[in-house]
């Protein structure tokens, strides 16, 4: 009996203590929770922004949860929601927005201060992609575009001019072939230094969809984004061009040298297509790398295109449940998306400010590394994804079918288009 009494007393004490904490928190200040995935440069930049924000708004405390690795970020959000915990402001990949809106997880940004006119006037055009079913659901601090990285030392060693990177797709292939080194026969497994390795799981599915395809005269989707159109003659040509690096020119593969991205960072690859966020990775892991960045090579039709994307901040329904927290969340969102925040961000993360005023800053445009990314913003496309990871997987599989299964690029794209069309149709069917 004594035990039971003890338990009862303990239970009452715990209940009182938790009530007390809640009451205290309510009296003193509003506490909101902010979540993003773990990427050191982003975490540092956000910590700095939060410190500034809290100094300006003494009544608000922002709890920063940045412990979740990228690979588990969606899982953790999915696990937190039914438990009634989680973020008030969350940073999501722009391509995830439709899925999170579909679930009712995000609430629309309030008209004040995020009116459509304000967003269209001040933000990079690709931010318009956050508009979905007539509302804006998220707003970014920074945006990114793709550009071409090249290793100057490898270029010099291969007898190429280290200061003149390939400007068109033909030159790109020629440079990739010239810089590939084999130990033995010409075989992917014998490569010790890669010219170029196509990796669709990284950025190359974007390069194909929004850049190569357009440069070959095709289009990835219909104008309303609801019909897949990349399984065209132009699509085959563009996809075949990309696959040839592994199947025909044998200049590299994502399967060797620790994957295409690491291979470039480690100095084992001459040419690589990536976003500005990779600058930070290189600075941290291989600061000695002698590399340059240029705009993506122009295509057969002479056009320049690039893929634009961004991580963007939305307000959750959890914040929406409490007027005080909602107000704090909106204030916080406003603070972390100013031009000043964008400038802080570009210096720490390497992503370009989302507000045009800060992105077209002279210092950025003239920077040899950031300049090409910034120039790309003018001709960038952001794909409208209904399920980014599934749609990416479709192209990864199509590419594997070509390079591992010897499938014809046209056939692989037809198969991919059928699967992706089904994904898109089923998303819209439930709306």
């Amino acid at each position: 009996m004594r035990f039971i009494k003890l338990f009862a007393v303990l239970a009452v004490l715990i209940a009182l203590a938790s009530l007390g904490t809640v009451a205290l928190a309510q009296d003193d200040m509003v506490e909101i929770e902010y979540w993003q995935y773990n990427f050191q440069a982003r975490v540092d930049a956000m910590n700095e922004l939060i410190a500034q924000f809290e100094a300006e708004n003494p009544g608000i405390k922002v709890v920063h949860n940045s412990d979740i690795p990228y690979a588990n970020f969606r899982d953790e959000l999915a696990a937190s929601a039914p438990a009634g915990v989680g973020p008030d402001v969350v940073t999501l990949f722009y391509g995830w927005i439709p899925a999170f809106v579909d679930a009712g997880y995000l609430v629309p940004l309030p008209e004040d201060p995020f009116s459509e006119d304000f967003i269209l006037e001040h933000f990079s055009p690709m931010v318009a992609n956050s508009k979905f079913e007539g509302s804006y659901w998220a707003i970014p601090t920074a945006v990114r575009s793709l550009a071409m990285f090249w290793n100057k030392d490898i270029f010099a060693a291969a007898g190429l001019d280290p200061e003149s990177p390939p400007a068109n797709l033909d030159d790109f292939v020629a440079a990739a072939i010239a810089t590939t080194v084999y130990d033995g026969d010409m075989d992917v497994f014998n490569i010790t230094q890669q010219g170029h390795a196509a990796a669709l799981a990284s950025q190359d599915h974007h390069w194909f969809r929004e850049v190569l395809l357009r440069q070959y005269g095709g289009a990835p989707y219909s104008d309303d984004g609801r019909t897949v159109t990349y399984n065209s003659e132009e699509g085959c040509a563009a996809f075949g061009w990309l696959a040839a690096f592994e199947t025909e020119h044998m200049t590299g593969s994502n399967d060797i040298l620790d994957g295409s991205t690491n291979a470039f960072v480690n100095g084992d690859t001459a040419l690589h297509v990536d976003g500005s966020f990779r600058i930070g990775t290189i600075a941290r892991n291989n600061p000695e790398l002698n590399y340059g960045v240029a705009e993506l090579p122009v295509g057969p039709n002479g056009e320049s295109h690039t893929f634009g994307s961004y991580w963007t901040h939305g307000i959750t329904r959890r914040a929406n449940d409490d007027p005080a927290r909602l107000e704090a969340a909106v204030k916080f969102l406003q603070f972390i998306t100013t031009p000043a925040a964008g400038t802080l961000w570009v210096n720490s993360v390497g992503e370009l400010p989302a507000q045009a005023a800060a992105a077209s800053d002279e210092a950025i445009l003239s920077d040899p590394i950031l300049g090409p990314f910034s120039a790309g913003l003018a001709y960038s496309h952001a794909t409208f994804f209904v399920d980014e990871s599934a749609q990416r997987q479709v192209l990864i599989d199509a590419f594997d079918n070509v390079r591992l299964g010897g499938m014809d690029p046209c056939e692989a794209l037809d198969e991919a288009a059928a699967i992706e069309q089904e994904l898109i149709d089923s998303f819209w069917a439930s709306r």
Partner: protein
Amino acid sequence: MTLARKKVVWAYIFLAIPIVFFAYIRIYPALFAFQMSLHDYNPLAVEQPYVGLDNYEQLVKELNKRKSPTKAAFQNTANYLLLGVPIQLCLALMISLMLNEIRFMSTFYRIMFFLPFVTSTIAIAWVFRMLYQPRFGLINVMLQLVSLPQQPFLNNPRQALPSVLSLVVWQGMGFAVIIFLAGLKQIPRTYYEAAEVDGASRWHTFRFITLPLLNPTIVFLLVLQTISFLRMFAPVLAMTEQGRGGPLDSTTTVVLRVYREAFTSFNMGYASSLTVVLFAFILVITIIQLRVTARRIN
């Protein structure tokens, strides 16, 4: 209350704690999966609309397609099971028969075989991933030394499944070896002595004494290993690029599919229907195995 009764009451009170814990943490969620499978269950949403058997209909539709990740998951799981269990049990039986014979350093050898079983699967999976690496991986280095062509292993849709399977067979074997050894110790020496007196060959001794008397052990292991192969998840997650079960879904399993559907695509209802089907498979297979293989030995 008598002292004896008091003891019983306290025993139940202490037992109640783990039972409540298990009921809440393991059994309730397991049952909840049945309910989720009847809903369009999105963990991020507030409302989870009831959809009846829609998720099961979708499952049948996916299985009837020429190619689909769900179909690949079921086919691969069947392959893992049908290849893995017989290979693992045969190897384990051979090894334990040999271990049973030796006296010198026998403990050392037993530890060597049991060690992988108690090592973290994720750690082992990463080590294997490195061993399989093209060019610099130990296996390919050895192939090059003897002038054999390099193999892509995990990067090739045909070789990836056997590559993952060999890790699972090797890791789980230690457990089977120990159980077989325990089973072998149970067989009375006198049977072998009698057989020797009768002039039975080694094969006959094995066929008519060892094997029948090991039958309960074999059934036990068969059931346990079957279930463990049906639940395969961690090695595939750790050994394939970004845990996708590729290339081209060649290594994905039902449980990996459940995980990806539930947490990557947020289709928790559909994922639950997969779980329920897997549960039914495990139940049926276990019952059949117990019925067919558990004949009494005289």
